Structure formats: structure tokens, C-alpha cells
């Protein structure tokens, strides 16, 4: 069959600061932030667990706020500041939340972990979690099928303590 070469989609230029580095990118308008990160920029630390905002594995920080990168078109975020799991540590030095995930064994397979860590940091930034029940509810957007929840809660509690005394 002869190819009609129908160009399927248009492209737009966007500027994104990703993990502190400003980048000029050309993105197809249907590309999600998640696919931009994973497929084009090879930042595969951000995970795809459902692609529909139902699991939280793709959680990143957009201008400091946690969001589902799967339900975000990259083209709509021109000028945004994005932090992914690859940008959480300070060089070789782990973020205390990352360190605490290891200490408390707050993961098993590791697939939800990036999202859990970004979500924890987002929760700290929000400053709304006061009680244990608050933490559980506000971490419920990140599903962990391995069932590491009780250990994740310990990490978040510890981080909240730290942020209160800091």
C-alpha cells in the first residue's frame, strides 16, 4: 500500500526546567509529561503504573507540588519547574526521605517508590498533614501493591517530625 504520509500530530517548543536544568524541547502536543520524561529524556525513574491517574507511580513535583505526570500534557507546562526522582538527591548525598525509605524498608519491588518519595516531599511542602490518619489519607494517592504502607508511614512521620524541629 502506498503511504499517504499523513503527519499525525503537530509539535511545539517548550522550555522546562527539569531537576534544576533548563531545557528547550520540541514536544508533540499529545505527549504527556510522563512520556516526555521516560521516552524522550530517558528519565525512567518516574514510573507508569496505569497512565490514568489511578496509581500515583508517576508522581512528580511541578513547581513544588505533587501531581500525576501521566495526566499532564507537556506542551501545557511551558516554563514549569519539574523535579523527578532523579533530582531529589543532592549529588551523591541522598535526600533524608530517600535514606529513610531504605532504613525503614518502605518498598519491595521498588516500582511505586519514586512516586511515594515525590509524594512524601509534596506532602511536606503542603504542610497539611497533622495526624496519623491525615498522613494515611494524604498518602493514599500512591498505591503500593507490595503493601509497604506501614513502613512508608514511618518514613513520613519521621520526616514530619524532622520538619517540625528544623
Amino acid at each position, binding site marked *: 500500500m502506498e503511504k499517504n504520509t499523513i503527519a*499525525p*500530530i*503537530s509539535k*511545539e517548543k517548550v522550555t522546562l526546567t527539569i531537576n534544576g536544568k533548563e531545557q528547550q524541547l520540541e514536544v508533540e*502536543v*499529545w505527549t*504527556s509529561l510522563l512520556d516526555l520524561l521516560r521516552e524522550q529524556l530517558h528519565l525512567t525513574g518516574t514510573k507508569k503504573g496505569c*497512565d*490514568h*491517574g489511578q496509581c*500515583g507511580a508517576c*508522581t512528580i513535583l*511541578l513547581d513544588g*507540588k*505533587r*501531581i*500525576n505526570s501521566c*495526566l*499532564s*500534557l507537556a*506542551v*501545557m507546562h511551558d516554563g514549569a519547574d519539574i523535579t523527578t526522582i532523579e533530582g531529589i538527591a543532592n549529588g551523591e548525598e541522598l535526600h533524608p526521605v530517600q535514606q529513610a525509605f531504605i532504613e525503614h524498608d518502605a518498598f519491595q519491588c521498588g516500582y511505586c517508590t519514586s512516586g511515594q518519595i515525590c*509524594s512524601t516531599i*509534596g*506532602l511536606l511542602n*503542603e504542610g*497539611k498533614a497533622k495526624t496519623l490518619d491525615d498522613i*494515611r*489519607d*494524604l498518602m*493514599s*494517592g500512591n*498505591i503500593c501493591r507490595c503493601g509497604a504502607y506501614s513502613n512508608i508511614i514511618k518514613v513520613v512521620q519521621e520526616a514530619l517530625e524532622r520538619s517540625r524541629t528544623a
Partner: protein
Amino acid sequence: MRSFSYTRAQDVKKAVSEVSSHEDAKFIAGGTNLLDLMKYDIMKPRHLVDITRLEMKSIEETEGGGLRLDALVSNADTAYHPLVEERYPLLSHAILAGATAQLRNKATDGGNLLQRTRCYYFYDTTTLCNKREPGTGCSAITGYNRNHAILGHSQHCIATHPSDMAVALAALEATIQVSGPEGERSIPIADFHRLPGDKPEKDTNLAENEIVTAIELPKKGFARHYTYLKNRDRASFAFALVSVAAALELDGDTIQEARIALGGVAHKPWRKPEAEALLQGKEVSREHFQQVADAYLEGAEGFQYNEFKIELARRSIVRALMQAAKTDQ
């Protein structure tokens, strides 16, 4: 996802003209529901007008002593806004009962109202659904209908509206400000969403190419006596089976005014003012609350898998009113 073209609008007028000048065009802001539906091939817009750059992002007091929530304020910023927390805690609670922190950070107030149903069949393009493909039939009536309507449904559709926020707005009698090719107008929340009737494809009474610009809350916020009660199949991150927004104005033990809106039971947040009126001037008591609950559920009709919702709604109304009145009697 299908192919589409994309433009960014700088003001409301341009946004409306952009969407009017393209075939099958949609506004996009938070995108948390529209992109979800586009990926499932349920909604197939050929053009998206990005409205996130519009100046509709503040929450301000109105002259009448109410509050205006611009359509682009995120659900999280609304729920945690000091004025909302203080004067409309019912709204705060309802918003925080829905979705997740991540989704609430992205989803906007305007978009929240325009969420589409979570009917399993609407979400599965291999099945028949009048809402998705008008005239094909409703699979839910004879299928699995656990999350479906018990009130106001039709033979064409038994879907429910999934929003929690809208249920609180219904109880608070908010007004929706919209702008369109014909100019601006405001729609009372009670008239904003529709019952399915024979046009289940239409969720709301928005005219073609109209955009939601703001939500106005009247002065009365019922900040002393309110409850948002949500029953669901897991403790968080699940849509309501039955939810109740209850608000009371009390003078001692006497009820001056009662507002009750139900979620998860109909194609729109369910209010029944004539039933609420039964409480006017009455004392706070379980018996009176049961009467109003019975009146609310009059004519309710369940299906194979959601019959239980009728009794659940009845009990939830009573519980919510008891909690709102802060009484255990």
C-alpha cells in the same frame, strides 16, 4: 489518544472564539479527566484550547458577602483556602474527600463540575452506552450497576455524577458563572447538571462553547453545623457509593434551615428542597431526621447490584444530620 491540534488562549473571549472556530474543540485546564478519557478513546476532541493561562485563578469575597472561586483555582487551593476553611468548611471537607492530593493539585474547580461519570460501560468503548454513543443502549441497566443511580435515572441511562465538590456546592446553593459566544450568564448549581432523560450524552446545561469562569458561594456558609459523609468501597481514593452534604442552621435545638445534598445516587447532586423544608422549625431529633431521609428516598429505584444504596442513603442522611447537629440523641 487521537490526533488533535492545540492552541493556548490568553483571555476568556479568545478562548471562547477559539473553541467556537474549531470543530469538536474542547477547553483543557487541569486535564485530569479529559486526558484520562482521551487516552481511553472515549472523548475524541480534534482541537484543544489550553485555558490555563487565563486570569481566573483567585478566590475573592463578593460584594454580597459571599465568595467567588475562579474556575482555574485548583481543588487543593480551594479546599485549603483560609476563607473557605473558615466560612465554607463543608466545601473544604467535600473536596478533600475526593480524589487524591496529586489530582486535587492539578484539577480545577471548573473542571471538577464537568467530570464525567465513572460508569463501567461509559469507560469501556467495546460496550454499548447511550452517554458515550447516543442511541446504542444502556449496558448498565442489565449489567453490573454497583456505582449507579437510584434516583432520577431514565431507561436510557443510570449513570451517576462522580464529584464530591459539586455535592457540597449543591447544598450551599452556589451559582456557576459562565461565558460563551452569547455573553455571560449565571446558572444556579441546581440547574447546572442535568438528569439523563433521553439525552444522557449531555451532562450539564452548558450551551455549546460556553466556559465556566467562576463559582459563586452565597454568604451563608453553614460553618457551625455541617457534615460531608462519604461512603465508599475503600477508605480513600474511591468514588462515593453514597455521600451526603448536610448543613443546618440551628437556634438552640430548633432547626431554622436544613440543606441536604446527596452524591453517588443520581446523574446530578440530588437535592429535594420540599423534603428539607420538613425540618424547618423542628427540634433536632433522630426521628425528624428519619422523616426527612424517608422523604428524600421516596420514589428511589435500585437495580440488581445497587438496591442497597437506598437504605444506605437513608441511614447516611440521618447520620450526617446527627453529626451536623452535633448530637448523638
